[in-house]
């Protein structure tokens, strides 16, 4: 793990994106494939299991350091992070486990740790600590608590992989999406030249993401060059049918298989294999419009929904793009051509598969008038898509715009929390949120309201369990939870490091379906401030 610890230190010790990319690429060149595969998994934000509790770590530390509990606790408070406190308080280990490779830890030692009884687990931890230098003790503790965060974006990891193996970034992003298993074979497959018939089995394509429209839509040119649709307020997903088998992936690249049986059945009944991009919506068939987002959340939470839930909260897949048809990748074709094939494909489809309608408005003013009805349609506004554009990868400005109704909303990551006053004293109810500035999350808003008591209680517990640092009453938390915030406007601000402040922010909902990487970008907010 020595080499990986070196990489971690290099990534942690620099704020330069270029230096981070070089460090990762350099590591990939030097490291054995079995280790490099695990490094990619960890860097790309792959899930880590929690193998020991904080209580066990604390106990192991108190024993190993022979310091009184209060001093361990004071030290923890000063440092803010238990894994780091342990690495700092204990004398440096003898280095006898220095050369133990990363994959041996990940595949053998750590899984074995989870199976021990607490007594032996504590003893094992102490033995490991006494055999490793501080940098590796820290890293090991982070892996054990499932809380290792390496301050690099998925995009940066993809770029580094691309620099390492010479394959284009979108191919790598594609291969890395979904459930990537950290094995030497998978790493080799990641770096292999593109196959012409590369299906990549059950993987979704990287999503093409829209940017917020701040300018007058008339600046986009001729209305007829643009397809206008509702901006659906559900969960973005790809429905994949290949060789007759169905897969459903959320934009957060989580497998949703089994949760929406009505969608899978409808896909199985389609005339052929296809990959559809669209939105999962809880549907209100009586009035033919979506149910509120909250209804959909009931369905996401259920792995195997019962008949009652299926009947009360039916779900529709509102398809708006066709990425692959009968084995052919259509992403390079213009939207118009993809739409035509999509419409034909869905013509005879079962009810759960719907085609997102093209909105009929002859000119921009007419479209703007239609947009005023977004709320009645239970949508967030309009989408404008250039008819001649291919299906691109990621957030590329220019061809897809989201023209939301006011108030504006943004997806932001919870960064800090502070206890409230009065009725909610003692609970963490004051939150600070951040958006991405390059690879960094910067604070843009504070919000106090919008969650119900049950959510506040749940979030309070989460905050206590995921505190990384304390500054007086304020706690920094692991940047993992995404919230949708509504706000009235964005103003330039000298007070925030971000340079902008959002006016009247409030929490719309807790987006448990989104990953931190899905949060919005500072650039988009800055444009709102000037525009």
């Amino acid at each position, binding site marked *: 793990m020595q080499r990986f610890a070196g990489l971690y230190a290099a990534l942690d010790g620099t704020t*330069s994106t*270029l230096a981070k990319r070089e460090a990762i690429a350099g590591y990939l060149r030097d490291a054995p494939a079995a280790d490099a595969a695990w490094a990619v998994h960890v860097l790309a934000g792959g899930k880590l299991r929690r193998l020991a509790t904080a209580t066990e770590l604390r106990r192991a530390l108190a024993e190993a350091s022979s310091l009184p509990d209060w001093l361990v606790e004071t030290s923890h408070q000063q440092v803010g992070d238990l894994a780091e406190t342990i690495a*700092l308080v204990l004398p440096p280990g003898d280095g006898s486990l220095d050369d133990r490779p990363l994959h041996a830890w990940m595949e053998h030692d750590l899984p074995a740790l989870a199976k021990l009884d607490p007594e032996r687990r504590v003893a094992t931890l102490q033995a490991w600590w006494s055999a490793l230098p501080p940098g590796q003790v820290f890293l090991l503790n982070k892996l054990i608590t499932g809380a290792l965060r390496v301050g690099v974006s998925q995009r940066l990891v993809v770029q580094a992989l691309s620099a390492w193996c010479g394959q284009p970034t979108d191919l790598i992003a594609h291969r890395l999406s979904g459930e990537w298993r950290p094995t030497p074979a998978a790493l080799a497959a990641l770096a292999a030249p593109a196959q012409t018939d590369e299906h990549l089995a059950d993987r979704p394509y990287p999503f093409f993401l829209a940017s917020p429209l701040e300018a007058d839509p008339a600046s986009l040119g001729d209305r007829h060059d643009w397809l206008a649709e509702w901006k659906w307020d559900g969960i973005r997903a790809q429905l994949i049918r290949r060789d007759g088998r169905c897969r459903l992936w959320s934009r957060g690249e989580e497998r949703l298989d089994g949760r929406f049986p009505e969608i899978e059945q409808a896909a199985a009944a389609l005339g052929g294999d296809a990959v559809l991009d669209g939105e999962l919506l809880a549907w209100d068939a009586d009035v033919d419009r979506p149910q509120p987002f909250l209804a959909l959340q009931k369905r996401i939470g259920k792995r195997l929904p019962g008949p009652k839930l299926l009947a009360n909260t039916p779900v529709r897949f509102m398809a708006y793009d066709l990425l692959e048809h009968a084995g052919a990748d259509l992403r390079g074709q213009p939207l118009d051509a993809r739409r035509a094939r999509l419409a034909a494909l869905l013509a005879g489809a079962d009810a759960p598969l719907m085609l997102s309608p093209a909105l009929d408005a002859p000119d921009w003013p007419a479209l703007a008038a239609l947009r005023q009805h977004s709320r009645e349609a239970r949508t967030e506004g309009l989408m404008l898509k250039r008819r001649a554009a291919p299906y691109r990868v990621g957030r590329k400005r220019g061809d897809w715009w989201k023209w939301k109704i006011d108030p504006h909303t943004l997806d932001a990551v919870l960064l800090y929390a502070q206890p409230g006053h009065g009725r909610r004293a003692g609970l963490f109810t004051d939150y600070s949120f951040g958006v991405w500035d390059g690879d960094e999350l910067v604070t843009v808003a504070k919000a106090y309201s919008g969650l119900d008591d049950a959510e506040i209680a749940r979030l309070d517990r989460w905050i206590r369990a995921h505190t990384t640092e304390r500054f007086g009453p304020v706690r920094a938390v692991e940047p993992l939870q995404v919230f949708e915030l509504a706000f009235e406007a964005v103003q330039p601000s000298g007070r925030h490091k971000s340079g902008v402040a959002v006016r009247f922010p409030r929490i719309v909902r807790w987006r448990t379906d989104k990953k931190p990487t899905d949060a919005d970008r500072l650039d988009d907010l800055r444009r709102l401030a000037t525009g």
Partner: protein
Amino acid sequence: MRSEELIQPRPEGPYCPAGDFYIDPLRPVARAVVTHAHADHARSGSGHYDVAAAGLGLMRERLGQDAAITARGYGEAFRMGPVTVSLHPAGHVLGSAQVRMELDGRVVVVSGDYKRDPDPTCAPFEPVPCDLFVTECTFGLPVYRWPPMERVIDDLLAWWDDCARRGMPAVLFCYALGKAQRILAELAARTGRTVHLHGAMLRLVEQYRQAGVTMVPTVPVSESARGRDFAGELVLAPPSAAGSTWMKRFGKASTGFASGWMQIRGNRHRRGYDRGFVVSDHADWPGLLASVAQSGARQVRVTHGDSDALVRYLREQGVDAAPLHLPRERDAESGG
């Protein structure tokens, strides 16, 4: 004979009533013993100073050329009224001293700032047996345990090389007195490359050279031609220069900070430097405990920093420990 006759906190600073003198007074007094030349310890305006001879040059920089100063050799006993006083190496910076005071067979030692790690620029800390030991406590928690300097210098050289490869200057912020010279001296054992210096460091580095400390060659940044490209060069500057217009000349530079506070990851990230190097001229936790033990003192007074944890820990170990509250303003120069 009680220790209070030898050391008392006063608004002006630690005071020795029996000898009628202050140690590192905050305000001008008649008679002062000054432990070292850091700005939060050496203040001008007092009537007369006693200092360690090894630090005389630095003291003159701080206290003025006209100040009445008597230089004392380490271990040389001198009288202040009935009190026998001597200065002993503290290992903190060039000429830093602990103050030993003896009256009627009772001995009090005031450590001043000190460290236990090796430092090629000054005499090593000398444990002085005493009845009451007044220790500093800048880093009074067990999370502060300094890495070997050799490894820090490895990291520093690797960073310098990396910057050279990227065509960027490497600007290292560190305190102008002590830290800068220690780094320059440690570098001299590993490289002969020239280091560029901020103006605030020039005279201090010169004092160290005159004292016979071997350091890498240095040149003032100000002597470089306008528009000079500092790519691949290492530049030392005081922390106050960070973010100033002085930095503009370096264009896109990589920045580092050398301080004991860099031990904590959160500090490294919050400070906004690209790199943090753990270099401290203060004692770490093991150093504090070792010094207390080696003093053999039955009474320990803790000052200069957050003393709560060390006091409580020592008390639980059976030591008569208490905080010695002094009205000391923390000054950036020695804060790490």
